[in-house]
């Protein structure tokens, strides 16, 4: 049996249902047993600009997108102009035949830079600047074209169901596109009806219309479209599989591990996590009355951080969630949490900087800023998850670390993960442990919050506990928390706090610091969401008999130098892969290990890495044909 590895792309103007179309498609494929890796790309815009979703479907575990598209479903002209060249030989393009004569100049959302490149390409191939022009090229590339009039589908359906309203319902175009696609690949139709029913479960009337439209379009494709090379007829479903969106990993992790307070300020791509937490604010507690998470929308990120610290002082597991610009505003408060030894988690869904940068696009831009954020020397933890499944369990660990070591913790996530939809094994909360460190339940007399202890960590009181009175200050303080400027006490206090860094490296298990996927002569060092495309690229190389090692750094500060050095001691060529301009991990790596990075594979065009392009660069490295700095460019 040949294996399935199929990529489907749907595109359209923002607000036209691209995302719900992709959700239906993903859900159907997942229900039919396939593994899914989907990713959404969108402009910083509410309505009208181009947005698209790429869903990769396979019958084995996949961790990334690839460059090639096997089937594109488009219901507007822009999607065809922007993506026609991604569809490969024997792939297909389903498009609205009414659009054939549309000229590039009449699509106002095509920006000048893109249009110039497209015109050059069309000119060189002697094609008109129209949809027909680009489709001719696609055809020459070996793609099959499936023209269909979306308008007439709605008209016929309207007549058949005697529902005149349907005729003009252009917002059904997404469902038409999805259903035509599923019909073309011969996906069993029952799952499509079920998925639509699930997604519109609260709106029976809308569900019905969508199901009728889906049914009609699906049948249309099976009857009218010629045979297509790709068939998705279903496969053995893995038990306990969930279809999960990026931000749900950390959100569910927070619910499970007892984070009960999350102030936040809206920012893309982080707010989805807070909104999800608030949507599920009342929590089921085993054998007890319901619990809850207080999710507070604040006036700015400074306030979000201040409230989070205030909550943490009451002994509540507290977190905030933000992206680079918001995190920049929190930096002063991070130092306050540092000097006062307050456990807080800041979940940072990074995006492309600097400044507003590419606000809805991907970038692993904040590593060095996270490591150095805040003035003065104070201990903190910077921890990065590599995929959505990991982020659930890591969130649990992050809250343990921040409470055990009483240092603020920055949990690095990113836009790639936030806007991915994947299948993975159902999260298991029982695998999360809860360790609150030296948090006190009861205090007798003589309490001092910053008491010197053997391990440098003081027992922690909380606001409101009897006999637990303490003082905090952003000034240097004595053991009770009152201001001091005594030079000797200052040194003792600094040493006490900073000793935490060694303790963190000593106490956190090796595998939670750095995860090794095997070490070879050529070995990759990387962090965060680059993990998925790297794993898939390594799999591709393995099929050609090429083995490359990979270590994923999860603990980035304090830097696990000993662990990294021992893993890499026999490695000849070190390759750093990350989604930023300067190779930020590479810099940290060199600073902490005194070793040089031999090759950088970097991407900073705002789009997530694909396994294809990493594979290409790695192959060039093996063949000694690579640049020292390989810059990846894929993505519309």
């Amino acid at each position: 049996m040949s294996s399935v590895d199929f990529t489907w792309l749907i595109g359209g103007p923002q607000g036209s249902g691209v995302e719900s179309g992709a959700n239906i498609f993903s859900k159907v494929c997942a229900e039919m047993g396939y593994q899914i890796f989907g990713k959404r790309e969108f402009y910083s815009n509410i309505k009208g600009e181009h947005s698209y979703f790429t869903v990769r479907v396979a019958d084995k575990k996949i961790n990334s997108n690839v460059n090639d598209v096997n089937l594109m479903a488009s219901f507007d002209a822009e999607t065809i102009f922007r993506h026609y060249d991604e569809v490969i030989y024997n792939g297909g393009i389903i498009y609205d035949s009414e659009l054939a004569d549309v000229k590039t100049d009449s699509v106002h959302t095509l920006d000048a830079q893109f249009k110039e490149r497209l015109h050059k390409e069309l000119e060189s191939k002697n094609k008109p600047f129209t949809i027909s022009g680009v489709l001719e090229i696609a055809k020459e590339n070996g793609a099959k074209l499936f023209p269909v009039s979306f308008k007439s589908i709605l008209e016929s359906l309207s007549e058949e169901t005697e529902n005149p309203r349907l005729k003009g319902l252009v917002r059904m175009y997404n469902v038409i596109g999805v259903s035509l696609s599923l019909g073309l690949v011969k996906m069993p139709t029952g799952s499509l009806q079920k998925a639509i029913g699930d997604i519109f479960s609260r709106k029976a009337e809308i569900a019905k219309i969508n199901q009728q439209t889906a049914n009609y379009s699906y049948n249309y494709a099976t009857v009218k479209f010629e045979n297509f090379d790709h068939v998705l007829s279903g496969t053995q479903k893995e038990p306990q599989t969930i279809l999960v969106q990026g931000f749900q990993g950390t959100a569910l992790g927070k619910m499970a591990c007892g984070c009960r307070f999350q102030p936040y300020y809206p920012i893309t791509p982080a707010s989805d996590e807070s909104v999800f937490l608030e949507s599920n604010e009342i929590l089921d507690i085993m054998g007890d009355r319901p619990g809850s998470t207080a999710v507070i929308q604040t006036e700015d990120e400074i306030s979000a951080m201040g409230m989070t610290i205030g909550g943490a002082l009451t002994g509540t597991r507290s977190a905030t969630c933000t992206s680079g610009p918001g995190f920049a505003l929190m930096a002063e408060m991070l130092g306050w949490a540092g000097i006062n030894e307050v456990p807080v988690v800041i979940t940072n869904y990074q995006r492309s900087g600097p400044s507003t940068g590419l606000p809805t696009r991907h970038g692993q831009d904040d590593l060095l800023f996270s490591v150095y954020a805040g003035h003065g020397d104070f201990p903190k933890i910077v921890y990065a998850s590599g995929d959505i499944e990991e982020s659930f369990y890591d969130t649990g660990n992050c809250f343990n670390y921040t409470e055990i070591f009483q240092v603020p913790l920055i949990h690095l996530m990113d836009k790639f993960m936030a806007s991915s939809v994947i299948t993975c094994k159902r999260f298991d909360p029982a695998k999360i442990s809860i360790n609150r460190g030296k948090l006190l339940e009861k205090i007798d007399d003589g309490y001092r919050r910053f008491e010197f202890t053997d391990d440098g960590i003081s027992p922690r009181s909380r606001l409101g506990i009897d006999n637990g009175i303490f003082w905090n200050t952003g000034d240097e303080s004595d053991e009770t928390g009152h201001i001091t400027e005594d030079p000797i006490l200052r040194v003792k206090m600094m040493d006490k706090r900073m000793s935490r860094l060694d303790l963190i490296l000593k106490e956190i298990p090796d595998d939670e610091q750095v995860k090794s996927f095997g070490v070879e002569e050529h070995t990759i060092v990387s962090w965060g969401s680059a993990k998925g495309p790297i794993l898939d690229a390594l799999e591709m190389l393995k099929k050609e008999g090429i083995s490359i090692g990979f270590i994923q750094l999860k603990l980035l500060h304090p830097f696990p130098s000993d662990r990294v050095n021992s893993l890499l001691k026999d490695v000849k060529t070190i390759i750093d892969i990350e989604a930023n301009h300067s190779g930020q991990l590479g810099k940290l790596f060199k600073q902490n290990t005194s070793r040089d990075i031999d090759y950088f594979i970097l991407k900073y065009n705002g789009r997530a890495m694909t396994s294809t392009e990493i594979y290409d660069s790695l192959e060039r490295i093996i063949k000694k044909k690579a640049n020292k700095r390989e810059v990846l460019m894929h993505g519309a």
Partner: protein
Amino acid sequence: MALKLADYKTDVHNDWCPGCGDFGIVNAIQMALAEMCIERDKAVMFSGIGCSGKTSHFINTYGVHTLHGRVLTFAQGAKIANPEMTVVAVGGDGDGLGIGAGHFVAAGRRNVDMTYIIFDNGVYGLTKGQASPTLKLGEKTKSLPSPNTNSNVNPIGLAIASGFTFVARGYSYDVRHLKDLIAQAVNHKGLSFLDVLQPCPTYNDLNTRDWYAGADLMDEAQKRHSRIYKLEEHGFEPSVHYNSEVEVNEKLSQALIKSLEWGNKIPTGVFYKNELISPYTQRIKDKIPNYLENPPAKQNISKNGHPNTDISKILDSLEV
């Protein structure tokens, strides 16, 4: 065990300048806490940065000396996570109305049940006397190189416009009156604001103790006419009694008009009080019914070292 005034004092050395108005405020806070018999470990003082920021170190309750301009953010976070605490936040006028003005306005909209006291002296004392947001346009205090080029903000007016539901002004040299105002503010159900006129003897040579006492307004009989007067002694009725738009608007308007009074007559006392606006904790309770009995700080989150939270319903909905 009955608590005495002395129980609310710490033995931390107080390094404010001799004659500083801040002493009166700290004393009044301690007196109010003692009078209300508030348990020391159920109260927390949050403070900002500057001379007034040291206040939390002098009071023997939980004390959190925060960052410049940000005191309200910390304080609200603590109160929301543990609504059983009595929360008082203090800070200077530069802290609360300059760098922290955004938080001031946002706090008014939330109406968290706590108290905010501004030590209002017209200058940034600890940085050597620059103009603060309450100093008037054209005024030149001692260390200013030239007269103030900014207009002043009206703290009472801003509080009223922002939605604070208890708005009052005190004077730091009338400690008894101030103590009463603090007690009323703390007892108020909602966010209370207290603007305390507090002469800075070192850097504000305009709004001095003598100036407030009206030393310059002596009549022929050599009798002083204090600028400070008490609203309650002049029949001013600040409270909203009915939830009617007409009454609310009337009380807000009269408070705003009173807040503009300055110069030879300066009102103190309660300008506005409205307990018919829901406190923020009530607004959370409307969404989360058991929030007040089981707030974030009281929730048990684990059993035998593992989560006791059951997220299986959400996971079921994600399962394919």
